[in-house]
């Protein structure tokens, strides 16, 4: 996989950060480059991924769903079966192990829905470190069970009351903490966003998803024709896509269209955004004409973010990956269809990818294959779906 010089993916990415953080990101990059090819580090990470997180995850042929649609064969990459219930643990184990090698005792992280916070708390508990997690105060209410889970796991949760009180503000606050405690603290960022080297490092830790897809498809004598993943910050998607961009596969990222792209109540950064600088990177953003960051909406808290990983911006502009957006309504339909046909409850984030797969598979030949990354399980979302259904029956 390509390591971007100067942290640039074309014109995207880079390092737009306060000067106080420069020595910290330089040290991080130096250590990451040193350890990523270190035999001992790799063996240790591999051990935790296998025995603790539960890798490799299965690639499941969704026979019932495929036959019901009558088109291409749909395969599900079951990241939802990982410890904690989402792909997030791939990255938190990697970074927590790196933090340990760097002898950082204090770990901070941000979280939106709470999945990355929980995965950070788990990795830190397993490796004997202390975690503090910033979470928007709107999200601590929406996802109070995840707050409790983090507390049980020994992490301290700091509610963030500034700005829109969601993920982007949690990132701002984590960065402010990092500036103040730069000499003692490791910032464990949860998506493929932020200043270099985070986007490339998170991509690399998540690329185990795409690598396994390749070898599992080869194992059944196939290559994927179409690959689909959901995109918020875009870590499960970049981990899925990166090992496959040099194959012939058609690659599709699915964003949250919320209540529709015209409604302005969405989080479809690549589909409807423009270039800008936020959280240390140049990338596509949802913003007004003055450059103020816009409010976002999605039924899935994990996609509710006005930016996107810079490598996705590059893959969009180079047209190697096509980005689309699925509405809340399509997503709930896909959630229900997968649950009923296969007995698998997907996270609402992942249901965006499923929604697009349903649309695509119908139009494709039976000989073709569609691989969908099921980035997380949906237990956390059943209440949200119930509320959505109640609202929409009443209307």
């Amino acid at each position, binding site marked *: 996989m390509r390591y971007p010089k*100067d942290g640039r993916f074309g014109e995207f990415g*880079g*390092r*737009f*950060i*306060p*000067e*106080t953080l*420069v*020595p910290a990101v330089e040290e991080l990059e130096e250590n990451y480059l040193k350890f990523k090819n270190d035999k001992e580090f790799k063996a240790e990470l591999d051990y935790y991924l296998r025995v603790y997180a539960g890798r490799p995850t299965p690639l499941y042929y969704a026979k019932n769903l495929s036959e019901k649609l009558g088109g291409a064969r749909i395969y599900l990459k079951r990241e939802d079966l990982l410890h904690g219930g989402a792909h997030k643990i791939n990255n938190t184990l990697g970074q927590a192990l790196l933090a340990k090698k760097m002898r950082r005792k204090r770990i901070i992280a941000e979280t939106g829905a709470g999945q990355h916070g929980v995965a950070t708390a788990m990795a830190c508990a397993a490796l004997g470190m202390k975690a503090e997690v910033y979470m928007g105060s709107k999200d601590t209410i929406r996802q109070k069970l995840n707050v409790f889970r983090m507390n049980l796991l020994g992490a301290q949760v700091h509610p963030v009351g*500034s*700005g829109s009180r969601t993920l*982007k*503000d949690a990132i*701002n606050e984590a*960065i*402010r903490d990092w*500036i*103040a*405690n*730069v*000499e003692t603290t490791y910032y464990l960022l949860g998506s493929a966003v932020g200043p270099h080297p985070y986007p490339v490092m998170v991509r690399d830790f998540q690329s185990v998803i795409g690598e396994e897809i390749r070898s599992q498809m080869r194992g059944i004598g196939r290559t994927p024709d179409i690959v689909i993943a959901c995109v918020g910050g875009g870590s499960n998607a970049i981990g899925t896509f990166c090992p496959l961009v040099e194959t012939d596969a058609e690659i599709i990222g699915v964003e949250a269209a919320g209540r529709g792209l015209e409604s302005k109540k969405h989080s479809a950064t690549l589909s409807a955004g*423009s*270039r*800008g*600088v*936020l*959280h*240390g990177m*140049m990338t596509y*953003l949802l*913003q007004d*004409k*003055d*450059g*103020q*960051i816009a409010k976002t909406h999605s039924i899935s808290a994990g996609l509710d973010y006005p930016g996107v990983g810079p490598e996705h911006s590059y893959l969009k502009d180079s047209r190697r990956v096509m980005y689309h957006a699925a509405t809340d309504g399509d997503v709930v339909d896909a959630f229900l269809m997968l649950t009923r046909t296969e007995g698998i409850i997907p996270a609402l984030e992942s249901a965006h990818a499923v929604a697009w797969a349903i649309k695509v598979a119908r139009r494709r030949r039976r000989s073709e294959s569609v691989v969908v990354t099921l980035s997380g399980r949906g237990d956390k979302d059943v209440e949200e779906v119930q509320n959505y259904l109640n609202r929409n029956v009443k209307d």
Partner: protein
Amino acid sequence: MSRIEERFAELNQRDQRALIAYVMAGYPNEEATLATVRGQVRGGADIIELGFPFSDPLADGPAIQNAGTVSLRKGAKTGKFFNMVKRIREETEIPLVLMTYTNILYRRGFSEFIADAKRAGIDGCILPDMSIEESGGYLRAAKDHVDTIFLVSPNTSSARIKRIARASSGFLYLVAVFGTTGVKTGVKRYTLDAIKKVKRQTGGRIPVGIGFGVSTPQDVREYVKAGADAVIVGSAYLKIIEDTPERQLESRIYSFTKQLKKETVPD
């Protein structure tokens, strides 16, 4: 010579250091900002730093965050801001420095934004999230139009200080503490060391201003004694604005500024 350079040259002749006084534009409204600036100018401030709000100010502490949020809620817009700058410029020839975030300039286009800012009366820009590695387009757009004031930190290496100083004009902004704006930690040993280090690395080729958490006349005195060419006071002004009825605002700002300015003048 730019207005900022001229101001430093004049102060040097009088053996004075510069007091740089901050205000968030439009907090809590345009008239209050104008009253604040009048108080600052009358009280002896040498340079005015005007904040323009950004929705996600990750280098700022609670005081400036809150002021920015209020200003945005009241409808702060880039175009309106330039009109406010023009109004200030009609009243005074004091150097005006804009502090905001990279995306505000990038969105309009560096060249277009800087041309508009200059036309309104802005003399320099401070962008706390603009690192030297990313500054090519910004520097090209600013050259011969506005001064580019970069920041250095107590943990910036000597080689990097030199590199940043070469890209800077007007003055070099030394961040006093590990933290965001407005943290009151008192004067730290490492900060005084940093002033000496930065002065040594720049060899007097560019003035060094110190800011972040500078809030009292005592702070100003100690930093001046340690060799700072300028001190920047920000969040402390916002606190006064917050606590003062509008009709007393200008006079309160005036007397606070006067106290601060006294510490930059030799006895």
